[in-house]
């Protein structure tokens, strides 16, 4: 399969995995191995002084995988920029998944604050991967601001509703000169395959894997779906037709 290239860096896998909601670090590590992701997102939070031992990420081999800190929890551009700077100081990696989600019910990203934060972070040398609603104009504005990707949502985070924004994502893919990573809401491997079939460069999956009864098996299912979808896209699928087109010859029937 062809490689995914983000900000000049090559990846074999087109599946990015989030690390939230797993039952244990061990289960997360197994799922990570099964899905083959090379980019994993993590969140930045206060240490719980009463319970400092919680260390979900000890199983991640940072020599092999790219840790992609997110700015989750940020409600404004200012908060997102603060989190991004902290993450960079912590990792010495300048990649950041930018998310600004002031609305706690739908967790939809704020386009104005996201663009504002992206402009600041790009100027500061960050490789910015912004989480956005499936808005083609916003995607263009972010691309012009210098973001490394755009990451439109399929449906609200963790909702498992699938590719509800398909029509808008198709427009984004058609216009984009940076990789399009479909992030959020993909609940089944078929959703991921659909995103890849229409030409998305990658998908980001967390909840659907982490909360499955068997996360490891679901991780593998997503891996296969992403590969299948990419291969189908590269193979050049034909458009749907209104009426039947016979697959078998329409001559030589055994009748007069």
């Amino acid at each position: 399969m062809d490689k995914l290239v983000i900000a000049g860096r090559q990846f074999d896998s087109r599946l990015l995995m989030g690390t939230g909601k797993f039952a244990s670090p061990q289960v997360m590590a197994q799922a990570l191995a099964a899905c083959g992701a090379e980019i994993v997102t993590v969140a930045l939070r206060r240490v719980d002084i009463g319970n400092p031992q919680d260390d979900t990420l000890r199983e991640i081999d940072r020599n092999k995988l790219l840790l992609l800190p997110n700015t989750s929890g940020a409600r404004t551009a200012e908060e997102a920029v603060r989190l991004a700077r902290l993450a960079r100081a912590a990792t010495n990696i300048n990649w950041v998944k930018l998310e600004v989600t002031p609305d706690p019910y739908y967790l939809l990203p704020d386009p104005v604050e996201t663009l504002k934060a992206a402009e600041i972070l790009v100027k500061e040398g960050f490789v910015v991967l912004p989480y956005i609603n499936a808005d083609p104009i916003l995607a263009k504005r972010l691309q012009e601001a210098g973001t490394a990707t755009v990451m439109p949502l399929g449906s609200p985070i963790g909702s498992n509703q699938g590719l509800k924004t398909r029509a808008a994502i198709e427009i984004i893919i058609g216009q984009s000169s940076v990789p399009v990573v479909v992030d959020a809401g993909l609940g089944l491997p078929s959703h991921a395959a659909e995103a890849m079939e229409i030409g998305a460069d990658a998908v980001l999956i967390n909840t659907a894997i982490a909360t499955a009864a068997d996360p490891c098996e679901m991780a593998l299912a997503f891996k296969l779906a992403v590969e299948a979808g990419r291969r189908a896209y590269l193979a050049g699928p034909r458009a749907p037709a209104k009426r039947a087109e016979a697959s078998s010859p329409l001559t030589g029937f055994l009748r007069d």
Partner: protein
Amino acid sequence: MKSLRINGQVRQFAPEEMPATLSALLERLGIGPAAVVAEVDGEIVRPEEFARTEVREGQTIEIVKFMGGG
């Protein structure tokens, strides 16, 4: 007593027990390896700077780690 605001909570230290550096504070709180980065009065402090970062009465300190997230 000397006080520090740590991760949103005020903590009091007897003057002789007040940690001198950020490293000493983390050790006192039992959170050495979990912390990946800190902020002291809004200034970012990298882990390699913890040992030489002085802690003073009245400061606001954020101690931050990575955790699972999407």
